[in-house]
């Protein structure tokens, strides 16, 4: 087991495309780090650089105390779980698990012991003599994990390991991976584009965009204090509502027209106001807050999703789409006008140009 230190890593491809533009992360021993971001954000490239499958253009990579920039993947003491599992199709499950150990010259008895132990942990003991194609998706996934476990490496690297599974199995395997990692205490670096997976698995999240780190923090931190509009809309579903506001005679206006009832103590003339769907309250359904944000919502559609409903609508002149997440099965007609409100401590403010979070100290006045 070991810490991993990523110092200003860069990756530039032959064609001049910059996939990773200087990323630094300090991963503590035993920590579960999830790299999350949309496709093309450089998360997989970063992971593959840690694995040694991509060369490092610039920067330093330490696994433990060892600088491993130019060390072969096999010698980095890491194990990787691939998206398509990359099981050797012609080998039995046993040989799939044993192959890496054999190549490292382990004694037969030791290999057998390790394979059986890993198989026991993953409950794949009865499949050891089968070929991968005789296994279900979930079982293959376990074999892929087993191949990582038997090696007892300093770190696990996961490259979207659950994306080929169906929704139900994905939830189950997610829980198992989390449990396993805590039991083994192995430092893990996990790549996904699924924000829910990221939230539930990570000790700390690393949100990447365009090859750069947007935010590093615990899932709750990232959720509650997104560092930018990018993070705010990427983490959480439905995504955070964003209202571009500009100040006109002490009134905040949406799109320079409709006045939005909110008090913000700032000298800025324009900013982006963020509020999560679950933090918006429909006044007709609950008590009215005297403070924070008040606006009128024109309903366009209601999506009941069981325990709650997503109320879609527009505010202002109809130019900004808003989602409200409200408990229960609701019925509103399209075109109906609802009053919605949000508490001041649930409001997020971002710089309109850079998208970066702005903390307005004691800002949101009583209306």
């Amino acid at each position: 087991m070991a810490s991993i230190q990523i110092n200003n890593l860069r990756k530039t491809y032959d064609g001049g495309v910059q996939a990773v533009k200087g990323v630094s992360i300090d991963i503590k021993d035993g920590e579960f780090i999830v790299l999350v971001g949309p496709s093309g954000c450089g998360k997989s490239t970063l992971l593959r650089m840690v694995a040694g499958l991509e060369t490092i253009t610039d920067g330093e990579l330490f696994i433990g105390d060892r600088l491993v920039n130019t060390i072969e993947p096999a010698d980095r003491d890491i194990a990787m779980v691939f998206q398509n599992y990359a099981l050797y199709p012609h080998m039995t499950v046993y040989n799939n698990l044993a192959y890496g150990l054999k190549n490292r010259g382990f004694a037969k008895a030791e290999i057998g012991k390790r394979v059986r132990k890993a198989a026991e942990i993953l409950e794949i003991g009865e499949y050891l003599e089968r070929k991968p194609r005789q296994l279900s998706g979930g079982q293959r996934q376990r074999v892929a994990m087993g191949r990582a476990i038997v090696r007892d490496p300093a770190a696990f690297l996961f490259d979207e390991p659950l994306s080929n599974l169906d929704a139900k199995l994905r939830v189950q395997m997610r829980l198992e991976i989390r449990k396993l990692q805590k039991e083994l205490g192995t430092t893990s670096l996990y790549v996904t584009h699924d924000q829910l997976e990221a939230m539930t698995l990570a000790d700390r999240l690393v949100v990447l965009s365009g090859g750069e780190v947007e935010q590093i923090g615990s899932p709750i931190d990232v959720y509650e204090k997104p560092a930018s509009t990018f993070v705010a809309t990427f983490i959480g579903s439905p995504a955070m509502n964003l209202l571009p506001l500009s100040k006109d005679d002490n009134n905040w206006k949406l799109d320079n027209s409709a006045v939005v009832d909110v008090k913000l103590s700032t000298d800025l003339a324009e900013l982006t106001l963020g509020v999560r769907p679950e933090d918006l309250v429909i006044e007709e359904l609950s008590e009215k807050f005297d403070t924070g944000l008040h606006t009128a919502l024109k309903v366009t559609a209601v999506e009941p999703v069981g325990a709650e409903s997503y109320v879609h609508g527009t505010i202002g002149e109809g130019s900004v789409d808003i989602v409200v997440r409200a408990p229960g099965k609701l019925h509103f007609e399209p075109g109906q006008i609802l009053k919605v409100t949000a508490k001041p401590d649930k409001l997020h403010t971002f710089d309109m140009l850079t998208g970066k979070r702005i903390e307005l100290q004691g800002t949101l006045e009583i209306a």
Partner: protein
Amino acid sequence: MIERRPLLSFSSHVIMVIGIIAVALPVWITFVAATHTTERMLVSPLPLLPGTHFWENLKMVLFTQEFLGTTRAPVWLSMTNSLIIALSIAIGKIVISLLSAFAIVYFRFPGRMLFFWMIFITLMLPVEVRILPTFEVVANLGMLDSYWGLTIPLIASATATFMFRQAFLTVPDELLEAARLDGAGPLKFFWDILLPLSRTNIAALFVILFTFGWNQYLWPLLITTKTEMHTVVMSIKQMLEVAEAVPQWNIIMMTSLVAMLPPILVVVLMQRLFVKGLVESEK
């Protein structure tokens, strides 16, 4: 098919049977000829049904050197030659094509494209169009009348190389990455992963190439002079020439039958692989 038309469906079978009979007819006539005596085969009209001298003719063909006053290699010997040559060509082509396809797909090295095109160009230079100069090269290397001369010049194969290249390209990259993480170097990866994964392709190519090697005619004709190096396929021509004077059709047809049997067996018994090999190698 879609509509139930018994008549049409019946006539489909009839046409197929007629087609099969037409295609099989020459071989049936060959078989019939091989079961009669030389005397019977001199009387017109020739028989259409098999006779009783099959084993006698077979024994004569396999072990006799004399044929109408000329000496030739007994068929068991020319069959052995054919077998050695067909196997060497098939295996040789497969081995060198596997190796070069592996290099071309999995390595980036200076000259890679040059080598690729050199192999590609062999596609455009069949033996038939460069008969004389190739013969001279083989003669200068002292390879006439040898198994080396009969096989080596034929084992370069663009088709096989392309087929393996195609197969390797469909192997997921992650498999190589997983193998690298598992500590496998290039040769280990080739031997432990790539080769076992290519088994069906190898078998399919083998069927095609064995047939190709066994049926070689022009090349052995050019570079063998000693009868003990003759292949069974090429011995037919000589027999036909002799037959101009005194036909001994039962013996000639028995030899043809024996000569065509091994590749037919390989193709029919390994039909699935054969079809795969044909279709894949044309991609």
